[in-house]
C-alpha cells in the first residue's frame, strides 16, 4: 500500500504578520513558515497505518519557504520518501490551483490513499481533499478522525456537526482530509532530522505546471488586518439579571422585538 501525504507551508503565527506595501498579500519576506498543523495530523495517521499494516508513506510538497525542514522532519518521523515539486510559482497558491497541480502529479503515480490535512490556517476552506478527489475521479472523505485500512477499501470515521460521528467504508484509491489523527503527532528528534538531512533523501521534481493566479473573473483587491472591534462585555450577576441584560442587548441591536 502506498499512501501519499500532500503537505504545505503556512506562516508561523508566533510571528506578527504584516501586509506588503500594495496590500495584496502578507509580507512574505520576514515571515517564518512552518508545516500546516492539519497536515501533521495527516502524516501521523499515515504513519500509524504504516506501523499497523505496513505501507509506503510518501510526502509531497510544493517548493514553499522552509519546506525542506518540513520534509526532512517527515522523513525523521518515519515517512519513506519525500518529493518537492518545484517551479509552481512563488506567492500563495490557492487551494484550487494546489489541487489541480497535485492531481496532475498524482495521475502519474500509483497510490492507494491520499491523506492530507482537512484545511490550513491560511485558507480555512477545507476544499483540498474534495477538489482533489473530484479531479482524480476517486472517492473522498473529509473531517476524518480515524482511518482503518481494509482490503480494497478503508473505513473512515468522520466527525460531523453536533457531535455526530459517521463511519463509512470507501473504496481505494481515495482521498482523505484529516482533522485529527488517532494520536498526537510524534516528536521528531533533532538528531534524526539531521540524519535525514545528511542522507539527503529529498527528491526534487518539476511541478506539472505553473500557478496561473486566481480563477477567471476573480480579482484580489486588498487584504486587511482584522479590525479591532470594541471590547467584550462581561455580564455578571445571577441568572435572571444576566438574561435581562442579554435581552436588552439583543433588543438594542434590533435582533429581537420586545
Amino acid at each position, binding site marked *: 500500500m502506498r499512501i501519499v501525504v500532500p503537505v504545505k507551508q503556512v506562516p*508561523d503565527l*508566533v*510571528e*506578527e504578520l504584516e501586509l506588503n506595501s500594495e496590500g495584496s498579500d502578507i509580507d512574505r519576506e520576514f515571515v517564518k513558515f512552518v508545516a500546516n498543523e492539519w497536515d501533521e495530523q495527516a502524516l501521523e495517521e499515515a504513519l500509524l497505518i504504516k506501523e499497523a499494516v505496513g505501507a509506503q508513506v510518501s510526502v509531497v510538497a510544493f517548493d514553499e519557504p522552509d519546506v525542506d525542514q518540513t520534509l526532512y522532519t517527515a522523513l525523521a518521523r518515519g515517512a519513506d520518501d519525500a518529493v518537492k515539486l518545484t517551479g509552481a510559482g512563488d506567492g500563495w497558491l490557492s487551494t484550487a490551483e494546489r489541487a489541480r497541480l497535485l492531481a496532475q502529479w498524482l495521475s502519474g503515480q500509483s497510490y492507494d490513499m491520499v491523506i492530507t490535512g482537512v484545511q490550513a490556517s491560511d485558507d480555512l476552506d477545507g476544499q483540498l481533499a474534495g477538489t482533489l478527489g473530484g479531479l482524480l475521479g476517486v472517492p473522498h472523505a473529509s473531517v476524518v478522525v480515524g482511518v482503518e485500512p481494509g482490503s480494497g477499501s478503508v473505513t473512515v470515521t468522520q466527525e460531523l456537526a453536533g457531535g455526530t460521528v459517521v463511519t463509512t467504508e470507501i473504496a481505494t484509491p481515495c482521498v482523505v482530509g484529516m482533522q485529527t489523527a488517532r494520536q498526537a503527532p510524534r*516528536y*521528531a*528528534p*533533532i*538528531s534524526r532530522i*539531521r540524519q535525514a538531512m545528511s542522507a539527503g533523501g529529498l527528491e526534487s521534481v518539476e511541478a506539472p505546471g505553473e500557478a496561473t493566479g486566481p480563477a477567471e473573473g476573480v480579482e484580489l483587491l486588498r487584504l486587511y488586518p482584522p479590525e479591532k472591534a470594541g471590547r467584550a462585555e462581561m455580564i455578571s450577576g445571577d441568572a435572571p439579571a444576566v438574561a435581562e441584560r442579554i435581552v436588552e442587548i439583543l433588543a438594542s441591536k434590533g435582533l429581537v422585538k420586545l
Partner: protein
Amino acid sequence: MLAVVVTRHILGGMGPAQIAVFYSLAVIAIAVFFYGLARRVAKYRQGRSIDRPWLRGPGSGVKGVTARPSFASAAGAVLTNRTVRRRKPLVGWAHLALFWGFLGLLAATTIVGVDYDIYGHIITGAIEGHEKTFLTGWFYEAFNLVFNAAGVAAIAGLAVLLVRRHQRSEPQLDYTRVDVKDGGYSRAKLVAGDMLFVDLLMAILVTGFLVQGLRILSEGFPSFERWTWMGWFVAKALSVAGISPNVAFYLHGVLWWAHSLMALGFVAYLPYSKAVHMITSAADLVATDPGPTRRLPALADGKPGYTSAADFTWKELLDFDACTKCGRCHEVCPARTSGGPLSPRDLILDLRQWLNTTRHIPTLLETELRSETTGPAAPPDAEPAGDVIRQETLWACTTCMACVEACPVGIEHVPTIVSLRRRLVDQGKMEPTLQAALQNVASQGNSFGKSARMRARWTKALDFTIKDARKEPVELLWFVGDHASFDERMQGLSQSLARLLHDAGVDFGLLYEAERNAGNDVRRVGEEGLFEMLVESNMQAMSNASFTEIFTTDPHSFNTLRNEYSSFGLEVRVRHYSQLLADLLETGRIPVAPLGAKVTYHDPCYLGRYNRITEAPRRVIRALGCELVEMPRNRDNTFCCGAGGGRIWMDDSHLEERPSEMRIKEAGALAVDRFVVACPKDFAMYSDAAKTTGLDTSMQVVDLVQLVEEAHALATRETAGMASGAKSGETETS
C-alpha cells in the same frame, strides 16, 4: 613442648581426618570465591569502554568545582570511610569500626595462615625438617592484644548496623516500591539477604570470641593469655557461668567447627551476595568521576540512548554492583519524597538484577520476584528504557544530583538516567507538554514558544539601552536565559538587575535575539541533537560578539555554559549574577543601606550542589545587612524545587506534595520575613508554593536582585535626603 611457651596450638586437638576435611572445605570455599569474583570481573570487562584517566595518571575533575580525582584521594575515602560517615555520623563511625575490625581479623587470619601453613609446614617443616612458629612470645601477645581490639570494634560497629537493618524503621531501609502501587512483586529475598549478611557476620565474630574464651578456660587461664583480653574476659564470664574446663574443652571442639564452617561459608558466599560490596564499593569509589554528572557524556558512537544490555559502561556495571541498598539516595530524592514514581535506589537495583540475569551472573538472595516479566524481571531482549525502568520513573527525575551527592560508594545515577531518557526521546515517548516545549525550543530557540525576536523585548521598559554585544565590544556578556527573558514574572527582575548594573557603571551587553536557550535542561531531558543545535547557534552568536566574560541569570544555563560549552570551544570565564553582585556590593559600586530583614536562602541545585557556589549569595545577603537564618538543608545538601532536568515542562499534578511545597514549609518553620532565591525557576516555583501552602501571608519570596534593589533604593533615598546637591543624578531608581 613446654607448658610455659607463650603460644597456642593451631588446629589443636584435631585428628588428621578432621584436618583433611577442614582443608578440603577451605580449598572449595576459596575456589567458589574466586569463581564468583571472576564472573563479576568478566562482566565489567564486557561493559562499554570509557576512560577514567586517573587510574593511569592525574585526573582533571571539574575545574573550580571538585577536587581532581586521584587514586590516592579515592583510596583515602575508602580507608577512612569518609563518604560513609558524611551526613550520617553514627552509621558512618559504626561502619568504620566494622571496616577496620574486619580488615584486622582478615589480617589476623592471614598471619596465622602464613605462620602455620607457609612458615610452619613448608619453610621450616618440609625444608628444615621440624615445624616452627613465629606466633610466640611477645609477638603472640601483641597479636592477641591488637586483634582482640579489631574483633571488639567489628562487633560494636556491626551491632549498630544490625539493629538498624533489623528494625527497618528509617524510610531509606524500607523496600516498598514507589513505582508499583498495586503489588505483583516480592522483595522478601532482598530483606533475607540483608539479614543473612549481618547475622552471619555477627555469628562468626561472636563464635570467634567464644572459641577463644573456651580455649583459654580449658587451658586453665595461662597468665600470658591476659593479653588476649577479650578472650580472657569471655573465659572468665564462662567460668562464672559454671562451665568447667572439661566442658569447655568439649564445647570448644564443637564451636570451633561452627565458627570455621560459617567463616568458610562466608568466603564462598561473598561474591554472590550483598557482601560483594566489600570489593565492588571500594572499586567504585576509586573509579567514580565527579565530571559526567555536571558535564554529560556525548552520545556513545553517535547512538541515541541505550537500547540493550551491551550499552552500559563498565563503570555503570560496577555502580550497580556497588550498591549496598543503604537508601541514602532514596531518602533525599525529591521525586521519591514527593510521591513520584522514582527511587534512585530501586533504579540501580532493577538495572543490576536485569543485567545480572541477562549475563547469567549467579547471585544469592539478591533478586526481586515478579509475577510478570516486567521491571527487573524483564527478559534479556527487553528495552532498558521503558521495559526494565518505566518511562514515568525516568521522567520523574529532576537531575538535582542529590542522589549522586549522597551516595557513599560513588554511583553516578544522573548520567545513566539521561542515557536512558535519550532512548525515550529517540522513540518520541514523552509527555505532550514536554514535546511542545522541545518543539518550541527547536523552532524558536525558547521553550515558551514565543518569537525569537521577542527575546529582548523586556529591555524596552528601561530608560537606557543595553549594549548589543554583537555590535560593540563589552566587558561582560549577560546570558539572560529563557525564563528571565520571556516569563512576565521574571522580566521585572531582569529589568532590576539591568538598572543596578547600569547604575554601577558595569560595561555589559546582550546577544539580543541571537541568544538561544542554553540547552542545559534540553540535554538533561535527553534531546542531545537539539542540545547540539542550540550550542551551535549560541556559539555562532558569541563568535560574532566581543566580550571577555559571561554571566548568567539562570543557574542551569550557568552549568552548561561553564561546564559543557568548553567541549564546544567556549573559553571565557562564566559567572552567576550572584557572584557579580557580591563583588559589586563589596567594592561599594552598588551603594546600599542595611535592610535589617530576617531572611533565609535556598541554594539552587545547579548552583550550590553542581557548582559549589554557596558563598557568593550569602555574601550578598550579608552585605545588605540582613540576618540570614540557614535552611536545615543547605549548600550542597539543598533540596530541589522540582523544576530541574526538564521537569518544569512536565505535569506534576500526580505528586502527593510538590517538592517546592515541602521546601517552602521547611522555610516556614524558620520564622523569617523573606525566602531568598537566586534562580528564575525557583522564583516561579516558590512564588506558587508560597500561595498554595498559604505561607505567602507571613513570608515573601524574593530574588536576590530584589533584595539588592531595595537596599540600593534605601541608600539612594538617604543620600538624596542628606545632600540635595548629589554628585550624580544618574542613580535614580523607580
